């Protein structure tokens, strides 16, 4: 028996070894080489191009499209003095251009010794990065982005191939030339002895018209460096500057447009980037600066009459008939899939819900909330009257309960036929909004069960619910005249409604009392409530009205955009331009590929008109509450 068992086991082992050794394994199954240890920036190319370096209007070799070029041309280095910019992290591949130290180390399963992840730390901006090697999928499009992004990798022989998504907006050169938060970066780390060759390919549908590729050489540190930290804390840098002021150069008025070109004898066309500047054929164009000057100057302003650009990315607002749950942090979750984003706070009391979506998938929204808490929805706050946020009011409210008012004096109020409210008090969730939401919805003859009956007029409404303070702040005249932002203070999550929209330009509903001035004020108010965790990543998380989960940095970028566009349109108004001329000038051209739309409920033209009108009139229409 023993012999038989032994023989059987041996055959099994041989058989297994044949299986292991005999597969003629494809390259991708290689376990790779070991790159653990510390490395530093090496090589002699691109002297003077390390991070935070780069002259203004020096974009040669960067395949920027019109939008990317215009973004960079508007970039004033003083923008780095804004609070949300001072400690902003570095994205890849930019982080590799830094002169600091890097460290790689492996994470292995303690039982199987399989490679789970390769971790990476960049000294500059203290980026902690994980490259997952276990085949896990990337997060959904509506998940938050970070400076390190989300990376997965695999070894192909001596080459570590990495794909990174979920990046934030970041620089590719320290002069405003940027990649957007929709960029995907494919990286290869190649080891040859004590040198690593890094190769990055950045694909950015927003600001590039071709892949941006670049190499960097790293050298192995024989002795562990002593410098690993990058202390950064934001502070007041420009004391007299108004909060709303975002430094920019107006297109066509860049005071340093030719500074680099003149200093280094580079034809202006060569300084303006574009995919063609990376091609050998471009050398011929560089031989005669005078001949290309007109073409170069044409690239420094939006092309008149060019087709309006728009964002093609829609993944962050899925339309697959399902509700998707994203844990945010603390007690708060984000539900996506039914129009506007829905925030749900859960705990020992009933659910606290911010907005109810478009109402097309309300039953699924309710089902999703039931997976988060067995308790019914108790409170629903509407951030505005917009249908993408109130469409599910009736169904979600009916599916909830508010025991806090059962048996209270509310129960004894006049019936619905008289007041429109107070029927079956407490047998549904309580709908809360700023008073103008109620009035405008009633004016619009919305069904009574969709109209928030519990309203407030100004300033702040607050509750302690599910173990944390919940603040509701009125933001007058932003998207509408009835906007509320909701701050879950313990979970440190803010739901913004349409004031902040990561898919579109802000929905400035001028007819409902919105204005660009109020919008900027609201964005600034939001920024006053946020704190980042580390180098503008994380901390206060922000659920926008539409689009992916965000944080302070994303919000700050958005605020910059709205302020910059408003300033451009204001300057155009000052020069006497009418609305048609403002639209024709394409003053949003640098952001259209990210936030623009040419169809749907909120187009770029509508946004420009709303900004123009509110600036031109410099008055707000009278809110119904003031009548």
């Amino acid at each position, binding site marked *: 028996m*023993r*012999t038989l068992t*032994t023989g059987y*086991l*041996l055959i099994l*082992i*041989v058989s297994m*070894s*044949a299986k*292991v*050794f*005999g*597969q*003629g*394994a*494809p*390259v991708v*199954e*290689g376990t790779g*080489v070991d790159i653990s240890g510390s490395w530093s920036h090496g*090589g*002699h*190319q*691109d*002297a*003077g191009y390390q991070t935070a370096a780069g002259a203004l209007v020096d974009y*040669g*070799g960067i395949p920027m499209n019109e939008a990317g070029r215009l973004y960079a041309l508007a970039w004033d280095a003083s923008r780095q003095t804004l609070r949300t910019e001072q400690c902003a992290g570095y994205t890849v591949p930019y982080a590799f251009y830094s002169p600091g130290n890097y460290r790689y180390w492996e994470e292995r399963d303690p039982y199987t010794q399989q490679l789970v992840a390769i971790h990476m730390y960049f000294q500059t901006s203290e980026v902690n990065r994980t490259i997952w090697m276990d085949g896990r999928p990337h997060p959904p499009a509506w998940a938050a982005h970070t400076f390190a992004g989300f990376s997965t990798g695999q070894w*192909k*022989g*001596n*080459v570590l*191939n990495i794909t990174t998504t979920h990046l934030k907006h970041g620089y590719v050169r320290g002069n405003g030339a940027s990649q957007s938060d929709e960029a*995907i970066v*494919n990286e*290869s780390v*190649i080891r*040859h002895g004590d*040198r690593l*060759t890094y*190769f990055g*390919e950045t*694909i950015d549908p927003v600001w590039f018209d071709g*892949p941006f*590729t*670049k*190499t960097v*050489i790293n050298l192995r540190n024989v002795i562990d460096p002593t410098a690993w930290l990058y202390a950064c804390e934001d502070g007041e840098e420009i004391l007299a500057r108004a909060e709303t002021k975002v430094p920019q150069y107006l297109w066509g008025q860049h005071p340093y447009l030719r500074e680099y070109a003149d*200093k*280094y*004898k*580079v034809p202006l066309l*060569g300084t303006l980037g574009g995919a063609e*500047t*990376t*091609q*050998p054929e*471009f*050398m011929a164009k*560089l031989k005669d600066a005078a001949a290309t000057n007109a073409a170069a100057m044409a690239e420094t302003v939006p092309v008149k009459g060019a087709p309006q650009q728009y964002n093609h990315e829609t993944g962050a607002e899925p339309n697959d008939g399902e509700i998707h749950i994203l844990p945010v942090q603390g007690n708060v979750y984000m539900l996506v899939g039914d129009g506007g984003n829905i925030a749900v706070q859960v705990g020992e009391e009933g659910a606290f819900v911010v907005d109810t979506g478009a109402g097309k998938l309300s039953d699924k929204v309710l089902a999703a909330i039931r997976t988060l808490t067995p308790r019914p929805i108790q409170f629903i706050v509407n951030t505005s009257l917009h249908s993408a946020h109130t469409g599910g009011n009736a169904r979600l409210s009916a599916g909830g309960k508010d025991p806090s008012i059962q048996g209270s004096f509310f129960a004894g109020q006049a019936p619905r036929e008289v007041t429109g409210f107070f029927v079956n008090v407490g047998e549904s969730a309580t709908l809360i909004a700023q008073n103008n939401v109620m009035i405008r919805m009633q004016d619009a003859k919305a069904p009574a069960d969709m109209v928030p009956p519990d309203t407030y007029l100004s300033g702040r409404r607050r509750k302690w619910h599910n173990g944390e303070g919940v603040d509701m702040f009125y933001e007058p005249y932003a998207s509408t005249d009835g906007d509320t932002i909701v701050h879950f203070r313990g979970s440190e999550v803010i739901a913004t409604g349409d004031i902040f929209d990561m898919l579109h330009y802000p929905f400035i509903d001028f007819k409902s009392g919105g204005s660009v001035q109020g919008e900027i004020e609201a964005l600034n108010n939001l920024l006053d409530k946020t704190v980042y965790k580390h180098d503008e990543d994380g901390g206060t998380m922000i659920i926008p009205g539409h689009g992916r989960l965000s944080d302070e940095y994303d919000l700050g970028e958005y605020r910059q955009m709205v302020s910059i566009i408003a300033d451009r349109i204001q300057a155009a108004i000052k020069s006497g331009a009418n609305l048609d001329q403002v639209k024709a000038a394409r003053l949003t051209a640098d952001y259209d590929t990210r936030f623009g739309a040419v169809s749907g409920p909120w187009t770029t033209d509508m946004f420009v008109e709303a900004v123009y009108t509110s600036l031109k009139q410099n008055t707000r229409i009278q809110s119904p509450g003031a009548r």
Partner: protein
Amino acid sequence: MISIKPATKTASFLFKGTLLVFASASLFAQGRAGRAGPPPSPQAIAPMDMTGYWVAVVVEDWRYRMLPPINITKVVAGRGGGQLGVPINAEARKVAAAWDPAKDEAAGEQCRSYGAANIMRMPGRVHITWQDDQTLKLETDAGTQTRLFHFGAPQGQGGDWQGVSQASWDTIPGGRGGGQMSGALKVVTNKLKPGYLLRNGIPYSANATVTEYYDRIDEPSGNTYLVITTTVDDPMYLTQPYLTATHFKKQADASGWNPTPCAAR
């Protein structure tokens, strides 16, 4: 066997099992390489396919590569300390300061920037083929140069712009136990005619050695790149090895192939 104590029995069992595992590994490995006959040629065991047309993607050192060269004495401070990042010594600086493209043209030496130490840095296209199963041929349209990467013993006397190049596959096993190999092409070039590390006359000497690794990168985007990591050692003009990395993008065909003669300026 019966009399062996249990602990020892286990050890013996494991030992035999291990032996068999290695034996099986050996057997399986022989399935590929154990047959009699000449060793497979470098072409046959190539871990990657480098053949075809590739176009330079000019990003690194863009202005130095794309623009007409300027004498380093005229370069504005800030351009890498006046030496463009190249770790040259005082003698090299003296030579570079005396650079005069007209003199090179008059001497018929317009190709000094197109030698092995800089040719891959020139904006242009390369065409790579197997000249025979022991030799890779790399042709450039910029300067119409030809480099021959010979596997095995060095061939030729050198003394010209491209010198003598010895090639080898720098490989690691792809899968456990000898699956498909992967890795880079390593090329070591010396016996060079003195030339320029950049188009502006920064020199390298006949004693320079150029070591290159060629890695092929297939991206999820569908793009394929050739990344070349280059080290130039030159005891005469460099204070330390000069390191650069250069990349080319794979082309489907010969589009854009435009042979042009060397130009000194």
